[in-house]
């Protein structure tokens, strides 16, 4: 395996990072909405989002991507690969992040909400200034844990034609026929991406577990 192959893998890794970023940002925005809806106190909204979460947590990401990319076209929604992947990862990530953050919101003591109400803060301010900062802090380790899952999950984007790290590895191994070596390197590259995040996540967790008062 030579230098050009390695550069090719690096190129794939760039896509992996880009896809993860898309998924994380899209999933973050929608996931926040999901989390807020699930804690809104409106039964209809809560049930709808609970169903949403269980559907996207209950089916393999690979199938979701496939249905979004090749299925939506059939009903006339022609998405570019980019858009399809962004949509697929957003759906997937928002279900998980929404669930993680809902847990965080529920972990904030009730009194915080009541105190904010008693100060006549409006909904937006209550959430933005009081509840969410505390909720996100609590859920940070789980959020990072999910980000790691997402990075690894982008390997499935090859089904819609992205040459990200895993697919690049596949292509290289098809040309030089040393899959063990190539996948070893691919694994190491994933590891290099994910491990720092994992370390940061467990560091955060330990810091949160330490008594704060």
């Amino acid at each position, binding site marked *: 395996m030579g230098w050009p192959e390695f550069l090719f893998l690096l190129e794939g890794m760039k896509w992996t990072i880009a896809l993860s970023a898309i998924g994380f940002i899209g999933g973050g925005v929608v996931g926040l909405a999901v989390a807020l809806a699930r804690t809104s106190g409106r039964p209809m909204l809560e049930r709808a989002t609970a169903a949403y979460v269980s559907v996207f947590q209950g089916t393999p990401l690979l199938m979701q991507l496939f249905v979004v990319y090749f299925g939506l076209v059939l009903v006339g929604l022609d998405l570019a690969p980019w858009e399809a992947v962004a949509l697929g990862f957003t759906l997937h990530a928002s279900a998980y992040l929404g669930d993680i953050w809902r847990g965080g919101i529920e972990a904030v003591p009730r009194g915080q909400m009541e105190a904010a109400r008693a100060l006549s803060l409006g909904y937006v301010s209550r959430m933005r200034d009081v509840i969410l900062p505390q909720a996100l802090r609590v859920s940070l380790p789980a959020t990072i844990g999910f980000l790691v899952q997402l990075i690894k999950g982008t390997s499935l984007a090859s089904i819609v034609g992205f040459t990200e790290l895993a697919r690049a590895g596949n292509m290289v191994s098809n040309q030089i026929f040393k899959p063990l070596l190539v*996948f070893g390197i691919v*694994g190491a590259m994933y590891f290099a991406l994910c491990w720092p995040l994992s370390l940061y996540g467990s560091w955060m967790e330990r810091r949160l577990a330490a008594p704060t008062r």
Partner: protein
Amino acid sequence: MNYTLDFGPVVTGLPDLLKGCAGTLVLAVSGMVIALVIGVVGVVLRESPLRPLRWAVIAFVELIRNTPFLVQIYFVFFALPLIGIRLAPTPTAIIALGLNGGAYAIEIIRGGVQSIHKGQVEAGFALGLHKRDVFRFIVLRPALRAVYPSLTGQFVMLTLTTSIASAIAAYELTSVAKLIENESFRSFEVYGTITVLYFLMSWLMMRAFGLVSRRYFSYPVK
């Protein structure tokens, strides 16, 4: 739109798909059992006084958690023969799934063990119980109860992960689906159907976990 849906091949293939579901459940459940064993044993080793053992567990956990399952399963499949172990795809997939789930289970169960009040352990020691018995009889069950939701959530994810095992020709739903797809080229119908089947399986799995929890963890707490 110049494509008409045709579920005919899916309908004729339904018995095979259901057999595939059974295959998936076999992979998932055996993987979970192995994962649970690895999780419990791993936690014990992780807390052992021997430093190399602790480090080995940490390295194992980090390695598995930070690489894609596809890479892991290829390694198990292609690397085991190099050291003379030649297993059929399904056992290979079970081993890979067990290792993968085990790494997550170690971290989760460890969190549960740490959440057990120190007084419980001390009470066990004060009664003259050995460390082994204290872990087995006093710590383990409350620890598992404490982390039950995350553990079962992880196991449902493991069920979905089995779909990747089709890459090494293990017998499970996705590989059956790919076969039907190859014969009929009705991709959307096939994948749409198995998406529903996966959802049903994970839903069933959650229900089953709920039952287990009611049987096994139903002691009252304050």
